Structure formats: structure tokens, C-alpha cells
């Protein structure tokens, strides 16, 4: 899990994004390493979601560079992101309640035998993906999603993202609506994703979750990166200061920069 020596799997450099007169992202640098969990933290309006949407191809960036496995890439739409192996699990999960787990995991990308659905292959792949993630909380992959608990749904949504040999999985507030036991379950799953060599990005408001699961933490403050630090080199209190004030001791934005804002 050290990864310090290795080059980043995905790196965003000097990203700028404006919506009309509102300059949302200022020269943002953000790095994702294979096998590590990078947490993206920041107060409401700090630009977390905008950054993720740029990554997912929903927003086009105004300037800056995206490097994937060291090569510059352009992401013009969700399809480009998916082709690179970047999957985003949004907060609302986007699952169909009336379909079962397998049907949801393969939705829009069904395996076919000529023109017909190949249920046997899909069910087998769904099972092995869930087994690789050590998910044991689902009784049957043929259960309707409507009958699943919040944590189980999150698990299905994450497994769906992993199914496509994804290299980067972005999780938007995965534990926001969950209870204690289910949060535990999902955090374990996030850790296992990283252990499989996937670069995981987790957006969270919950400092306990972040401090527990993340390897490195990127704090955004009013559209700028306040600091990108290793978890082992920082404390809970420092991260909170970075989020709320943009600086903490030697870390963070210089005072002059803040005045500029």
C-alpha cells in the first residue's frame, strides 16, 4: 500500500472549470494511485462534485491536463471515461428496484448469445465479482434490488462498477445514508477494492470514515487544493482545519492566496 514510488494511475493537473462567471475549480491537481484509496474532502461548494464530474466526462474541463497511466487523455463524455476504466458510483446509486442484482449489474451492457440474453454467463460473472470482493451479505444474486437494505444496495452499485475491469472507481458519499453496521460493511469493501489494485476515490463528509479508509487525502477549499497529504502524515484535526480554513500550520494555502479570493 505504499505506492509512493510508483507513478500515479490517474493525475489531474492544473484543472480549471468555470460555469459562466463562477470559477469553480482553480488549478486543481489531484492524483489517484493504483491500490490506494484517495479521499476527496471539502466543505459544501468546495468543488468536489464538479471535479468528479470532470473526471467522469459529464463536464468538460476549461484547461488543464488529465494523464491516465502516464498518457495524456481527453474525456469528452461518460463513454470515454468508461472506456478508460473510470467508473463513478453516484450517491443515488442509480439502480432499478424492479430488477434483480444480476440484471442491475449488467444493465445496458448485457452479455448476449447472438441476440438473446445470456443469463448463465451474467449470473456466473456477477457471482464471481461479488466473491472477489468477499461480499457475503447477499443471499441470492437473483433477489430484487427492492428487497435489499441500503448497505446491500451500495454493495451492488460498487460491484457493478468493478465488473468492467475498472481501473479507477469513484464513490460519491458511499456511507452517507447508512447505519453503523452497514457503514462498516461498505468501508471494508472500499478497502478490498484498493487491495485488488484499483485506484479508489472516495468523496466523504465523514472524517472518521476518511481517516479510517483513505491512504491519501486531498482537501479542497473554495475550488483550490488546500493540501494533498498522506493520511499517515496528518491528523483528524488538521484535515478539519484544511476543510474549514484552507490551511493548517505549514500545510494549506498561503495567507496571501486566501486574500486573493
Amino acid at each position: 500500500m505504499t505506492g509512493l514510488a510508483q507513478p500515479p494511475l490517474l493525475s489531474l493537473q492544473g484543472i480549471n472549470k468555470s460555469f459562466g462567471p463562477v470559477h469553480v475549480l482553480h488549478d486543481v491537481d489531484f492524483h489517484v494511485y493504483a491500490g490506494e484509496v484517495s479521499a476527496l474532502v471539502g466543505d459544501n461548494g468546495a468543488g468536489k462534485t464538479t471535479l468528479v464530474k470532470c473526471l467522469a466526462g459529464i463536464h468538460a474541463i476549461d484547461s488543464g491536463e488529465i494523464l491516465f497511466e502516464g498518457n495524456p487523455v481527453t474525456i469528452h463524455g461518460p463513454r470515454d471515461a468508461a472506456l478508460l476504466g473510470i467508473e463513478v458510483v453516484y450517491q443515488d446509486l442509480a439502480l432499478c428496484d424492479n430488477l434483480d442484482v444480476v440484471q442491475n449489474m449488467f444493465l445496458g451492457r448485457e452479455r448476449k448469445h447472438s441476440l438473446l440474453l445470456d443469463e448463465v454467463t451474467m449470473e456466473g460473472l456477477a457471482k464471481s465479482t461479488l466473491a472477489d470482493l468477499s461480499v457475503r451479505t447477499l443471499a441470492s444474486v437473483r433477489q430484487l434490488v427492492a428487497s435489499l437494505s441500503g448497505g446491500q444496495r451500495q454493495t451492488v452499485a460498487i460491484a457493478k462498477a468493478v465488473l468492467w475491469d475498472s481501473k479507477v472507481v469513484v464513490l460519491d458519499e458511499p456511507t452517507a445514508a447508512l447505519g453503523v453496521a452497514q457503514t462498516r460493511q461498505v468501508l471494508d469493501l472500499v478497502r478490498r477494492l484498493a487491495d485488488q489494485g484499483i485506484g479508489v476515490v472516495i468523496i466523504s463528509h465523514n472524517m472518521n470514515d476518511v481517516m479510517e479508509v483513505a491512504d491519501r487525502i486531498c482537501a479542497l477549499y473554495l475550488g483550490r487544493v488546500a493540501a494533498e497529504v498522506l493520511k499517515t502524515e496528518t491528523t483528524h484535526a488538521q484535515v478539519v482545519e484544511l476543510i474549514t480554513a484552507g490551511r493548517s500550520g505549514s500545510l494549506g494555502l498561503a495567507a496571501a492566496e486566501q486574500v486573493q479570493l
Partner: protein
Amino acid sequence: MTDDVPVSTGLAPAEVPPPPASTATLPADFEGPIATAVIRDYAARIRGGDLGALPAVLGFAVLFALFSVTATNFLSTRNFANLLTQAAPVVLIGTGIVFVLLLGEIDLSAGATAGVCAVSMAWLLAHGYSPWLAIPGAVVIGMAIGTLTGFLVAKVGIPSFVVTLAFFLSWQGVVLLIAKEGGTIAVSNKLIIAIANKNLSPTLGWLLTLVVVIGFATPSLFRIAARRRAGLPAQPVRLVVGKAVGLALLWGTATYFLNRNRALGRVPLRGVPDAVPLVLVIVVVFTFLVTRTPWGRHIYAVGGNAEAARRAGINVAMIRLSGFVTCSSLAAIGGMALASQLNSVSPQTGGNDTVLLAVAAAVIGGTSLFGGRGRVVNAVIGGLVVALIPNGLGLLGKKGGIDFSSSGPKFIITGLVLLLAASVDALSRKRAQTG
């Protein structure tokens, strides 16, 4: 969101929760009588909030028992054959309605579409065009109407309720223009007439029984074999055999009675009505399409969560459009069955209560009005219930000063039954949301 499944931290195998009863498939190693297996399978699905066709089957049984006691001649082979023929147009149009309901939409113009297609076909036939042009032509007109409706709903974004309500009136106007006010166009084409007036020979009837039972059991058995080969849990073979035996008994009994002479006069009348194989083919084809193709899967997905479908890369607008095309095409075939019943097409064909009965057939059969839940076969069971009401009431005649064979009681009772079915749908959905 409540948790009825114990949550494990996902590490120790000892914490694996027991499988909940809500899984709809039985384990392969299930032991015990087959009847128990079938009942357990069904009970599990009902507990999962999917009532399916159960209320319709119960409703059919209740109405059947009621009319058997009160109406003379109700329990006769002749009337049973009549019932099947009368149900055919409602079932055919209702099958189309199932598709728009699955999408969470509605098509109030399906009856009028059936009328337009039927009258166009009748006009073409009456003007000497080949039936090989007139019959496919009617289906093409249905597809065109569905494309127009689908475009206005899916692309322009007008609620389907409004679009199809408008077309309900407009298409009836078209029928009036073609048939001329008060006029009817006679239909004498043998193929069309056969739908409601001809029967299979007794031998063909038995052959059909054989095809139905084998056609039901074979794909299920192949599926079980394929799943076992892949090491996936499969239904027990005995469950499929049990269901096939049940189907054979039911279909065989019906065929046996239909093959007996039911003529009032001297010319013998026997056999399974031609409407049965027609409906069977349509139901099998569309069940196959909706359960085995990505298109069918996407219909369910769009009806269940359109936003999720969109993000999964599904072309939501095209799926919606295709649903309306399917509905209108089936309405065209339903229109032919309507023409067959009267041997003619009039301005009333497909008007009045036709669309209401078709929607009722789909909903009574267990298709949800909220989208995403339902099966094609629902339209058949619901259609039989809907057809049973006028059939039984017609035979009831005058009782206690009320003429039950008139339209009044028929409309009131059918309306109430639809309302009842919609309540069951709404309540089971509510339960699934809070449960």
C-alpha cells in the same frame, strides 16, 4: 429502509446470514411433494410484494362460481367457447397495453387505433385489394400510429395521458371518415372471419395441447441443464414437471370439452376456437421478446428507473417509442379480431369501452400502473376476467327488475373491478415501499 437481513462484516464465514424466504427460486435439493414445491415457490413471490396474477385468478374463480349458480346456460361448452372468442380482442389489445404500462406510460388511444386499423383493412379489402396487402397494411398503420404517439411522448415530452387522449378522439374521427357516418364495411375475408368464427379440428386441438405442454417444459428443462452445467442454482426438475403436468391437465380438460359437439342445430360444432392459437402465438412471441432480449430488459429498466437506465447507456427515448409501437401494432391485430366478431367494421369498432377493457385486462391481470412490473400473460388472465363479466351478465338476463344484460350493469361492474385491481396494485406497491 429497514434491515430484515442480518448484516455481516463480511469476513467470517460463520456470519453468513441464512437465505431469506423472499428468493423466488427453490433450491435444487428441495425435497417433499411437488405440490408443496409449487405452492412454496408462489408463496415466496407473494411475500416479496409481487402479487402477480393471483388476484385475477381469484377474481375469475369467484365470478365463475357466481355465474355458474345464477346464470342459466353459463356452464356450457358453447358458452365456454364463446367466452374464449369474446376475450380475444381484449387480450390482444391488453397485451399491447402491458408494454406501455411496463414503461410507466398509458395508451388511451389503443381502442381507437384498433378501430382505425380495422377500418383501413376493411376498406382495402372492400375495394378489391389483396388480403396480403390489407392485413399487413393494417399492422403497418398501427406501427405508424405508435411511432407518432411514441415520438410525441418520448421526444417532444408530452405526457402520454394527454397525447393518447387526444388521439383517442382523433382516430375515432378517422374511423368515421372512412366508414362514413353510420355506415359499416362488411368483411368477408376468410382469414379474418376465421378468428372469431372457426374452430380447430379435434385432432389439431389435441396436437395444440401437446405443443403447448412440450413448448412449456422443454425450454425450462434446457435452462435447468445449462444452469447446472455452469454450477448455478437451478430449479428442481420435479417443479417443472409438476407445472407441466398441471398445464397438461388444465389445457387437456379444456380441449376435451371444446372438442365435444356444442351445436344447437343439426350441423355439428366442435373444436378449439381459432382465436386461441392466435392469442397463444402472440403471447408466446411477446413473452419471449420481453424476457429473453436486451430490448425487453430495457423496457423493464426504463419503467423501473428511467434515470438509472439513461446512465446505463440505454436510449430511453427509443425504448419508450418502441413500447408505443408494440402497443399500437398489437391493437391493430386486436382490431382484426373485433372485425371478425361482427363480420364487419363500423364506426363503433374499437370505440366505447374497448380501451378501458384492455387497460382493465392488463391491470386486473397484475400489471402495475406505476411501471416496471408485469408480464405479458397477465393480459390473458385479466382479459378472461373482463370478458367473463359481460358474458355472465348477458346470460343472467332480467333478475329482480334489473336487466343485467344491458350496458348499464356491465359498465358499472367492469369499472368497479378495474378500480379494485388498481387498488390492489397501489396497496401492494405501498407495502413494498414501506416494508
